[in-house]
């Protein structure tokens, strides 16, 4: 991890370069003129209030939507507007609401992820030559490696629908990794997770970054985002409000205003704020004391 963080600035080749992406649905502009770059070995966070257009922006990147204006380049080439071609090019994603193949086994889910990196067609499947067997064996081996990586190797034969929630999230990541991506898009990977699971996911994403895969992550959990990301962009009402290091974004008043709103005229004064903070601090220490 240490080596990676030091090498990041040097190998700053651009993996993803979205310029001027605009997405209109009829009269509604969901995403307006958003520029975003992700460099190799980087974890970039995308935050914003609900309805800011984060997932729409993701869908524009992955070909599920064709942006009304703007271009998305992956490693210098413009991405084709078809989801399966985007995946083939090297961008893999997960979904905000888990979209596993519920009635397939865990292993099969990952094997489906290998689809773009294998090319055995119908004839090869029917004739079952040595090439087919070799490719199948290789796919299985890679899938098992990935299951080991996320720690689900013992549940390979379970149906995906029977997995606990946290494992389903992990499996979705493994399935995305199976396509050997250069960039992984994670849409709220810790939604609904408890703090421990969030910690584990954080470790997992660092490990993925250390494999040389750039990560772009949408998340509402600010602690998670600010721990994880090298850079954070904030979308508000379809427009990019601010982009920078976690510290910069955290300190930016506009971001706070976008999330919490601007104070009223008779907003609570500094005294009341201090009082509330003190009470909060007290309560957290107390709960911590209780748990210990």
């Amino acid at each position, binding site marked *: 991890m240490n080596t990676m963080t030091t090498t990041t600035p040097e190998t700053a080749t651009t993996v993803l370069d979205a310029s001027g992406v605009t997405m209109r649905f009829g009269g509604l502009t969901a995403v307006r003129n958003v520029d975003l770059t992700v460099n190799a070995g980087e974890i970039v966070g995308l935050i914003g209030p609900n309805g800011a257009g984060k997932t729409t922006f993701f869908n524009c990147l992955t070909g599920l939507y064709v942006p009304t204006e703007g271009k998305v380049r992956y490693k210098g080439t413009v991405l084709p507007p078809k989801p399966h071609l985007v*995946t083939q090019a090297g961008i893999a994603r997960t*979904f905000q609401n888990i979209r596993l193949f519920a009635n397939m086994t865990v292993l099969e889910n990952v094997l489906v992820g290998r689809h773009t990196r*294998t090319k055995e067609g119908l004839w090869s*499947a029917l004739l079952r030559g040595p090439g087919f067997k070799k490719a199948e064996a290789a796919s299985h081996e890679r899938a098992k490696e990935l299951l080991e990586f996320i720690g689900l190797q013992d549940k390979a034969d379970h149906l995906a629908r029977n997995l606990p929630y946290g494992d389903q999230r992990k499996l979705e990541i493994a399935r995305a990794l199976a396509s050997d991506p250069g960039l992984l898009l994670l849409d709220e990977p810790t939604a609904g997770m408890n703090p421990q699971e969030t910690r584990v996911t954080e470790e997992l994403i660092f490990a993925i970054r250390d494999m040389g895969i750039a990560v772009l992550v949408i998340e509402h959990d600010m602690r998670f985002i600010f721990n994880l990301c090298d850079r954070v962009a904030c979308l508000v009402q379809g427009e990019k409000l601010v982009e920078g290091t976690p510290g910069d974004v955290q300190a930016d008043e506009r971001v706070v205003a976008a999330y919490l709103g601007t104070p009223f005229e008779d907003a609570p004064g500094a005294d009341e704020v201090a009082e509330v903070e003190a009470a909060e601090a007290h309560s957290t220490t107390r709960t911590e004391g209780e748990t210990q």
Partner: protein
Amino acid sequence: MTTQTNPTTPLLAIPAARAITTAGAALTLASTFLAWTWTAEFPGDLTVTGYPGGLQVLTLVGAALTLLFTLSGYGIKGLGWLTPGGTNSPVRLAALGVLGTMGFTFAAIAIKLGGIVNLEPGAWIGLVGALITVAASLGLPHDQNITDTTTPTPLERFLNSLRAPAPGRPKELPSWAEILIIVAAFGIGLYVITYGIDTEYPELFVGYLIISGFAVTALFKAGLMARLSALTTKYRTIAVAAAFVAAAAFPFTQTTDQFTLIAVNILIFATVALGLNIVVGLAGLLDLGYVAFLGVGAYTAALVSGTTASAFDVQFPFWASVLTGAAVSLIFGVVIGAPTLRLRGDYLAIVTLGFGEIFRIAVGNLDGVSGPQITNGPNGVPNIPDLNFLGYDFGESHTVLGFELGSYANYYLLMLLAMILVVLVFSRAGSSRIGRAWVAIREDETAATAMGINGFRVKLIAFALGATLAGIAGTVQAHVQSTVVPEMYVFAGPVPPNSAFLLAAVILGGMGTISGPLIGATLLYMIPAKLQFLQDYQLLGFGLALILLMRFRPEGLIANRRAKLEYHETDQLDAADKTLAGTTSGTTKAGA
């Protein structure tokens, strides 16, 4: 009251239940050797003492099975292998089967001959014996605790009495013995199915359905089927070979063509159903016009067969006509699939239904009046000559190994080859990269495309493959029927194969499996063919059967691995629930 809450307590408190069950079964068994009626007017001749006939044989088999299961429950050495799973639930099921067959025979004699005076004492003895067996078998303890509820209703307790645990690990047998068991099992299977096809009168067929339904369920509950399927998985190639050898042996058991024709039609129906299973069961594309591809294959073969009624004056050899039929079906599949497969779900179903009807109506109109003269319109293409393959005339009888093989027997064997091809295609395509892509598309198309699957392409391959396989079956069908008319390829009709029955065979049997559609097609063809008197109520009964199936066994008669996990989540995750249920039942016991 403590006994009430003990879940394995029998439904009825009967002392020496097992002894009475044994006696009842023995009584029924003995009664089958007596005369049941006085006149040979009732089919099957049940008048001879000392020689069971027709329905008596079925009752005899059922009673013998009940007896064996009951004796196995005594722990008699050498019979333990019969009940590795449940011990008493198979007894109950077999007893119910005997009562069903016996009761049906009893009622059939009384109704057919006009009154219960026509029954000889033997029938009364048999019925009483069957009633005693069922009643006493309910006095045997349950094989399994009720886990769902702590205060079960009588119905729940009855249903639970028919449940059984899965068998444990089998004893190691030498491999030759295991292979012998597989061969014997397929031999018995062939005999049972042959018996069903050969039933000569409807009463016998109904009795056959009742007893075989209960007996097969009993074998499942006893754990014998699980043992057998474990063996067939272990010796997969041998099992598949044995199954096909058994199927190929069928025409050798026949002396006339009467039942071979039924068997050929079952094979055609089953083959097409299996092809549809690729489209529906694997790729999840609801195709309501599938029979059109069978029609395309049949019409193509008819038009190139050299019949005088054909618009083309050509006579292709068989291999060429099969290839042409397959190729034309493939083209139709792609042409119809390319625009329609952009739709999803219900919309696709409606559009394919439309295309199925378009095919039928178009073929009916290509008669020289409404359109160019190609298909003779509603009159169809008659006089399709028999196949001739390398000098082997399929229309003639041939003597093979001392057995006389009639015309339909030749076609039966040919169709069996076609079915092997389809089975091979299904199993190989299903467990491959493309098969996984189909299932992924079925599960979640958006996620599948995001995983790099070209949804349209993969769906089109499934659609075209299904069409091609149906076309191949169609080429053989044209020669078997010797006439093709548009009315053979309707959406729904009383005679299979039609699109609705094909779909029903797939759903009834079990989507995504190989044996499911085969069994579904066999049942759906045999029942209307055997029970002609039901003609008017056939579709009603068929609808009822589907509703019941959806309610009680949504995965179909044969569940594939995934569906089994989907609908009955066993061995996974609920391990914790099980222990929990165990403790709750324990506490109730302690509390009571």
